């Protein structure tokens, strides 16, 4: 099975975001960047599928400026076979990314696309669904279990309100991974060295003749208000008094 894994370079989850003083966005200068954690889960899911079917080929793809290739090397160090970098200096919004990926789906013709369910920077959770729409392929979102049933079918479990749903989907398909699906493996030093020798193709986004003009405009970004500090009370009575004083809950 040929599996395509779209990944995104985001601010590392350990880094605390700081809003720029002119409120135009968050300041990521010099901050540590990493693979979107949900995309790491997608890579791990693909690696596990490959473990049960050695003939699989795993391809990571990312869209963005030149420095975005670092996440592709991380993906290849995890075990992905080769990568594609769709290079652009434009700001890319979800629809534009989905369109670019749809082009890659035409040239690569994968049986399965595994995406992270959302990127932790904008939390949009739109690309996988849009990509399924644009390609006309089956979709299963927020997947917590994957079972490879046959060459053209996949059994997946997805999270829905109040329970779980078991789906049988026909390939080709786009699925997005939930946090619970797996725990991604560590990258080893040996695999980092091997990754440097793997194939990485760069495609200019211009050559794909896709309209990537932003449709949304950011008006302003403001930091969340500081969380109120916790307070330790000595007994239940004191708690009730404080709740009465400070809230209208009682």
């Amino acid at each position, binding site marked *: 099975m040929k599996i395509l894994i779209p990944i995104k370079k985001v601010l*590392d989850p*350990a*880094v*605390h975001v*700081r809003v720029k*003083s002119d409120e135009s966005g968050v300041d990521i*200068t*010099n*901050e*540590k960047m990493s693979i979107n954690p949900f995309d790491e889960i997608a890579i791990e899911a693909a690696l596990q599928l490959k473990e049960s079917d050695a003939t699989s080929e795993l391809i990571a793809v990312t869209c963005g400026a030149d420095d975005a290739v670092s996440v592709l090397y991380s993906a290849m160090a995890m075990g992905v076979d080769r990568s594609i970098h769709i290079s652009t200096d434009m700001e890319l919004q979800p629809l534009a990314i989905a369109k670019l990926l749809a082009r890659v789906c035409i040239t690569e013709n994968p049986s399965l696309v595994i995406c992270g369910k959302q990127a932790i920077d904008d939390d949009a959770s739109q690309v996988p669904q849009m990509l399924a729409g644009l390609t006309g392929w089956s979709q299963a979102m927020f997947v917590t279990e994957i079972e490879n049933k046959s060459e053209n079918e996949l059994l997946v479990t997805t999270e829905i309100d109040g329970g779980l749903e078991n789906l049988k989907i026909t390939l080709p398909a786009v699925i997005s991974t939930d946090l619970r699906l797996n*725990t991604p*493996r*560590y*990258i*080893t*030093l*040996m695999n*980092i*060295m091997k990754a440097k020798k793997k194939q990485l193709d760069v495609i200019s986004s211009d050559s794909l003749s896709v309209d990537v003009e932003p449709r949304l405009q950011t008006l302003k970004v403001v930091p969340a208000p500081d969380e109120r500090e916790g307070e330790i009370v000595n007994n239940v009575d004191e708690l009730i008094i404080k709740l009465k004083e400070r809230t209208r809950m009682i």
Partner: protein
Amino acid sequence: MNSENESISFDVLIVGAGPAGLSAAIRLKQQAKKLQMNLSVCVLEKASEVGGHIISGAIIESRVLSELFPDWENLGAPLYTKVAQEFFLFLTQASYFKLPIPTQFSNNGNYIISLGKLCRWLALQAESLGVEIFPGFPAAKLLYSSDGSVKGVVTADMGLDKKNNQTDHYQQGIEIYAKQVIFAEGCRGSLSKQIINKYKLDNQSEDQVYGLGLKELWEVQESNFEEGEIFHTVGWPLPADVYGGSFLYQLENNIISIGLVVGLDYKNTWLSPYDLFQQFKSHPYIQKIIKGGKRISYGARTLSEGGFQSLPKLTFPGGMLIGDSAGFLNVPKLKGTHMAMQSGVVAADALIQHFKGNVNLANKEVIGYGKQIKENWMWDELYRARNIKPAFSLGLKTGLLYSAFDSYVLRGMGVWTLKHKHVYLQRKGKTKKSISPEYDGIITFERLSSVYLSNIHHIEDQPCHLQLKDATKAISINYKQYASPEERYCPAGVYKIVKQPNAEVRLQIDAQNCLHCKACDIKDPSQNINWVVPEGGSGPNYAMM
């Protein structure tokens, strides 16, 4: 851990991607290229990316950078702000006096930088020269040959749980062999410490003395910002018998770097470097600058202050020490980056001389490095600065007077060499308890909100990397005799005494807050705390410290 570790070999292995290690790597590859030699160089770094654990003032002399990259400006090295104006102040609680700046300590022509940024840039240059850099892979153990020489290191295991059991994601560390291993771990490196002990490298030198530096970055209001202005202070809030001082450097884009360095040879067990730093910011002169601004980063790191007298022997069979792992800091000048980089360059040159002649350097001691350091300008610089710090053991005022005499009259060439006086922490009854500080949350902050700004990543389910050699001493000695000084000197609030009703007093170690400053490994009164590397990628993620 039954199976054998995987292994890999290089010509040279460098432990630590700081200014010293990266300069050595760059110089090795540059020289090898000139001589059309194949030379494989590997750099291990415990931070998740290069620069992540780097913290420094920082003001840098660009001379070594110019030697490595004469066209560094065109290559985009992150040296943007030249020192424009400089003061040296003596602070009292409410006021200040300007002191003269000795010419040899003047910062004229130097740059105010983020050392973390510079290291990231150096790493890019090194990689383009073919150096293999592995961030997120700490060197955890030393490997010795049967003849007792160093032959390599083992990287830290990944995926062990709290009790040292292997989890599903366990990855065994790998063995990295090299003909020569260069230790560039910075102050009090966990492997360098073992090397110095094993080969008795400090036999002929005085004991190392240390300082703890604490630093914050602030984004200040534009009206308070003066690009390129710097000052250093002595005096308040440090007690007269504590060596140290502050710095405030105005970088670019309204960012200022503000810090306090406290000599760790202080006696009073109640002293808290962290609280002194917070208190320092409330001085009217400082408040004027940071008021209305926003704190954006916090970090801490120890530095070697022993200088010339404490410099250990630099070579041993199979390897060498460079940078602050050896202790190349010019203390009165408050500068070590150019010295660290230069030591890396000299070490690299010494190695190249042998590699050039096809000498197999495995197990060999490259004594040429130690000799060439002595012929280098850095030896003279370190020699001239040697008497300033020990003079301050006689108190701040005597120290200042002596420094003036030494700097203006003798220019560091006095025939005597002052010794570092040994100072031990005094027991709790002997010293006055200080009042618990209050934090306003505007200019002064409590420890945990500071640590939050260090972007620490640390998987909690891993073996504790702050090891007590004897767990009972935490209470029987530290708590009972010294009132647990680790609660105060730790700049990250890692150590906490927990008293619960109907339970014995115990020491709680919150290793996930550790900033990797190594103060505990140094200051513990019975040397009972051993700092070892945690799982790769743990610790702070400094962006531009």
